């Protein structure tokens, strides 16, 4: 069971959204990390088969997904970033509609819907209109529809957006359990969401994969590059341009605790700390790039 992306590119008139990406995705949880505009959603859509690559091939189990056609979609569960629904749908009506589109029989659909409503704690809201639900509950409904056909491949685009911390943890648990003999590909810009559950990660920037490997292997790259220091607030300005700040925390005594990434200690009194995947993310994505994306 493997989903292969071989030299996949997507070119538009004014930009290259995905540039010669090669990935060999086997069972387990894969994280696809990157800032907004990195090309993750474009890549995800090509992996789902709803967007045709400009060049390259995507194969499942050695066969082109375009050759497989509906047989590939039969194995797939997909939750897009923009999750829509018809306004008159209640949760149950929506799941019935989606189960029919996934080709389930009436009996199979009924059983599966009951099981998912229970597992994702949607039983109480099953009769309510989706448009009246909170963002987090809507996301759970979206997850439920992705799991209806018991897919071999689950592809989720920003699944945790709008979820509170408790719901994020719950979702991670569901995914970890689900991924045992399946392929799960999660695209996100929130590193902490997948750091603890992803077996492998690919980091995307400007349409390319800039880092690839297991979480521990990627974190190892940051050994000796992550520092922690305390410095007066009024001196922070001069260090900001020299280092990539991961975290700032103002303390009571008008000093700041700062966690930063740099090839060497740049702030006096710095000590090395254990790196995380988020540190690698900050290392790869410069502060000004992130500021641009956030409109700062």
């Amino acid at each position: 069971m493997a989903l292969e992306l071989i030299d996949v590119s997507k070119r538009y008139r004014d930009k290259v959204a995905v540039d010669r990406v090669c990935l060999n995705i086997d069972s387990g949880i894969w994280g696809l990390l990157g800032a907004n505009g990195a090309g993750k959603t474009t890549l995800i859509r090509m992996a789902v088969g709803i967007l045709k690559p400009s060049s390259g091939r995507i194969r499942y189990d050695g066969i082109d997904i375009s050759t497989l056609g509906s047989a590939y979609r039969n194995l797939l569960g997909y939750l897009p970033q923009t999750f829509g629904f018809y306004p008159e749908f209640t949760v149950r009506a929506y799941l019935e509609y989606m189960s029919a589109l996934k080709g389930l029989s009436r009996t199979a659909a009924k059983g599966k819907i009951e099981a998912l409503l229970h597992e994702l704690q949607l039983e109480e809201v099953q009769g309510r209109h989706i448009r009246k639900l909170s963002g987090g509950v809507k996301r759970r409904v979206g997850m439920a529809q992705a799991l209806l056909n018991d897919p071999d491949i689950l592809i989720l685009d920003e699944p945790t957006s709008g979820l509170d911390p408790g719901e994020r943890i719950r979702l991670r648990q569901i995914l970890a359990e689900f991924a045992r003999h399946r392929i799960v590909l999660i695209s996100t810009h929130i590193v902490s969401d997948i750091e603890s559950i992803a077996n492998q990660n690919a980091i995307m920037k400007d349409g390319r994969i800039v880092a690839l490997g297991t979480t521990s292997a990627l974190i190892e790259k940051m050994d000796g590059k992550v520092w922690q220091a305390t410095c007066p607030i009024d001196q922070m300005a001069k260090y900001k341009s020299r280092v990539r700040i991961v975290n700032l925390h103002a303390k009571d005594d008008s000093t700041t605790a700062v966690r930063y990434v740099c090839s060497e200690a740049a702030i006096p009194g710095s000590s090395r700390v254990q790196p995380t995947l988020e540190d690698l993310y900050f290392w790869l994505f410069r502060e000004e790039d992130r500021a641009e994306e956030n409109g700062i």
Partner: protein
Amino acid sequence: MSLNRALREECRVPPNPERIEETMRIARMAMQRSGKRAPRSYSYFIIIQLKRAMPASWILQTLLVLASAVFGPLFIAVHYPAVANDPRFVAPLVGCLSIYIAMSGVYLMMRSFRCNMSEIEMSTMVSTRRQLLAKLAILGMRDIAIFGAVIVAVKQTSQMRVATIAGCIMMPFLLANCIGLTLGHNAPSGSHPMRIATLGIALGLALLLAYSFAPNILNLFSSRAGGAICAALLLLCVIRIGKLNAKLSSMNPVAEVD
């Protein structure tokens, strides 16, 4: 020896019978394993399309229109016989009804984009072509029922010929579909219900004005030229539906280099 013959001979590779047996044995095992996956069904899909693809309000509208299409002409024939017998009144009313029916159909076909459902629908096992065909089939049955009722009711209560009544229905209906599908395809906001409603009202008014200033338009509907125009409009509708299907099947945007 000719090149072709040399190639055919060169390309021969005698197979090993033991390997063929082994392949058959392993393939049989694989076939047994793959049979364990639950079979997929299309019949439930058809039932759910009838049950869920049409909003309740849309179904209610359809029933109201059907009722007024049947009882409206009867009511007019009883209380206003002069109007019922005058094609100058009947034809525009029937035309406006057909425009309304067309716009409600366009709205339904475009709903996937409007409600951001198209991306998820594209990724499911049932192809978007089948999904669209199911919607067209339901719309077709509805339209045939309503227009059939209109033709029968108008025929009973007026002197108009069936061909003329059909022309008064089909030409505005097909024209409204062409325009509605074109605008909905080219402008994402064209699928907004208010815009579709505005388009419908505008077309209705244009039709009324056409009847007011060029009453001879009625003769066109029952003529061969009218038939030819309807055929051309039908072809355009088929093309637009094909383009809609292409759009529903893929996220490829218009501005693209391949």
